[in-house]
């Protein structure tokens, strides 16, 4: 089992100290805090050979050593390996020595004896800042590269939209990060598909474990995620592994975290920060190395204002996050999605893929799709199941949109903070009518039948209004 454990950090931490006992101490401290990838060196002359052979994430360096002193080494390391942070841990408690080392490029200078908490904090800070720096470099490379994205990880995501392509590039950059990734976006925008894509990009050995946190109270959340020991509560007849344990070496995708209770948020924060959790009914601490991806359709900043989401948890999640655009903001994908869903629905229903009138795209583009891609998919399935002729009738779509649209209108218009209340001088009824008619025509790409549907009038009535306007 142990040899299959994921190494953290992915590149080793090199510890250099001439005292072998202290090397053991450093190593034990790091191992007990979850840093299981270390290289130990008690002869400062060998450090360059180690650096040549291994890509190092961080160096912990003693100052006073025989043969080559730490500050001499620092001077030689920094020009060749400027991307590697170096923390000096020295018995020399002298300001000028600390200033000298920091001027030479050391990330931090700590005086022995160092307390565990301060030491681990310094390690985490150094690794985080180095990770951000490396990611920035990769992001720049990705965003300015002309190469098209042909990664198979994204093949289930149907898009040609530029915004979505940028998100693909971002995913490629953050997939290997040890930090959690937050995916926000309305329901049906494909958060889980993106989480799966990141899982494939990260090439994890373990499983992809999705969990929907909506509706889980704190006890159920703890039991689902962390598991329980036999006898932990009435009915716990046997020990149960939680989903965090199931996701070991893999990815845990926790969706709808905006709905989590505050006590569950505290437990989640501990899992993200310390990578630790305790199954119900035990004081034992278990360690997780699962990559954690989180999703929500809620605006977490708004939730913080309402005191429904913890600020510290939000800041922990804010390092890597991206927002998936709703379907109404990527209408250029509509033909692609429609064709794909028609193909799928026809296959499922054992029918020949129908053709459709180009006006159908215009009609669909007028709808706001609160349920996004998922809603379009079910709409298409429903239309294909009803269709009988060669040409797909748009009536099923019109009926659906007609039934759904009016629900949105009174909500917006009865709102006391609506757009009209913000106007200092009210326009005339005729001006408002003209504006709304023009907007409806714009949204329907000039199609008067669709525009009239949007306006809730007959096509004849719209035609008459337009004629009157001309005269």
């Amino acid at each position, binding site marked *: 089992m142990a040899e299959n454990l994921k190494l953290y950090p992915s590149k080793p931490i090199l510890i250099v100290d001439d*005292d072998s*006992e*202290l090397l053991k*101490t*450093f190593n*034990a*401290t790091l191992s*007990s805090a979850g840093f299981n990838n270390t290289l130990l060196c008690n002869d400062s002359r060998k450090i360059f050979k180690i650096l040549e052979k291994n890509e190092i994430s961080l160096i912990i360096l003693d100052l*006073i050593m025989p043969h080559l002193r730490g500050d001499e080494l620092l001077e030689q390391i920094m020009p060749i390996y400027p991307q590697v942070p170096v923390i000096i*841990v020295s*018995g*020399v*408690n002298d300001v000028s020595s600390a200033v000298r080392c920091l001027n030479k490029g050391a990330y931090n200078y700590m*005086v*022995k*004896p*160092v*307390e*565990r908490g301060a*030491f681990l904090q310094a390690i985490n800070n150094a690794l985080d800042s180095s990770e951000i720096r490396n990611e920035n470099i990769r992001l720049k490379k990705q965003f300015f590269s002309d190469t098209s994205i042909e990664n198979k990880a994204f093949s289930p995501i149907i898009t040609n939209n530029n915004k979505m392509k940028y998100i693909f590039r971002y995913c490629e950059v953050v997939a290997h990060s040890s930090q959690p990734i937050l995916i926000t976006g309305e329901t049906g925008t494909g958060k889980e598909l993106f989480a799966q894509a990141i899982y494939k990009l990260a090439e994890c050995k373990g499983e992809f474990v999705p969990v929907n946190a909506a509706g889980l109270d704190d006890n159920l959340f703890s039991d689902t995620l962390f598991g329980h020991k036999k006898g932990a509560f009435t009915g716990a007849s046997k020990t149960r592994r939680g989903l965090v344990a199931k996701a070991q070496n893999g990815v845990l995708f926790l969706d709808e975290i905006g709905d989590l209770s505050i006590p569950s948020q505290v437990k989640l924060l501990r899992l993200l920060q310390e990578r630790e959790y305790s199954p119900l009914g*035990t*004081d*034992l*601490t278990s360690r997780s190395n699962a990559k954690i991806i989180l999703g929500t359709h809620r605006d977490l900043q708004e939730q913080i204002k309402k005191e429904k989401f913890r600020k510290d948890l939000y800041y922990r999640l804010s390092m890597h996050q991206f927002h998936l655009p709703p379907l109404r903001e990527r209408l250029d994908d509509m033909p692609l999605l429609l064709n794909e869903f028609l193909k799928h629905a026809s296959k499922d229903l054992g029918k020949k893929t129908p053709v459709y009138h180009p006006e159908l795209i215009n009609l669909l583009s007028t709808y706001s799709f609160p349920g996004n891609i998922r809603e379009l998919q079910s709409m298409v399935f429903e239309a294909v199941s009803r269709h009988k002729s060669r040409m797909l009738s748009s009536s099923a779509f019109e009926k659906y949109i007609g039934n759904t649209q009016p629900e949105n209108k009174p909500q917006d218009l009865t709102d006391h903070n609506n757009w009209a209340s913000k106007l200092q001088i009210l326009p005339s009824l005729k001006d408002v009518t003209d504006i709304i008619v023009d907007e409806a025509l714009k949204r329907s790409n000039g199609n008067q039948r669709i525009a009239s549907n949007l306006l809730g009038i007959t096509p004849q009535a719209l035609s008459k209004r337009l004629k009157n306007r001309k005269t």
Partner: protein
Amino acid sequence: MKDSSVTIAETSHKINNMNHAIMLNAPIIKSAWNDVISMLKEYSEELEDFTVAGMSFEQACSIIPELISGIENCSLNIKNAVGDLKKSISD
């Protein structure tokens, strides 16, 4: 003969190195004890005359955490004492 201030500086440096190991190792032992204690609790229920370092399990449960805290406190005291000593020679 070495200047006494140099000797004090060198000795302080050695003490700091040794104390560094104590300061970092004590919390690991504390955490290890907390982890094994629940397993030992189950074991002690089955085996009544079970002892830890010659003490009854109940005694060990109260004494050992105190001993570990004592090591941590002593390490802090050594750190302060060395700091005071260094300060006295630099003044």
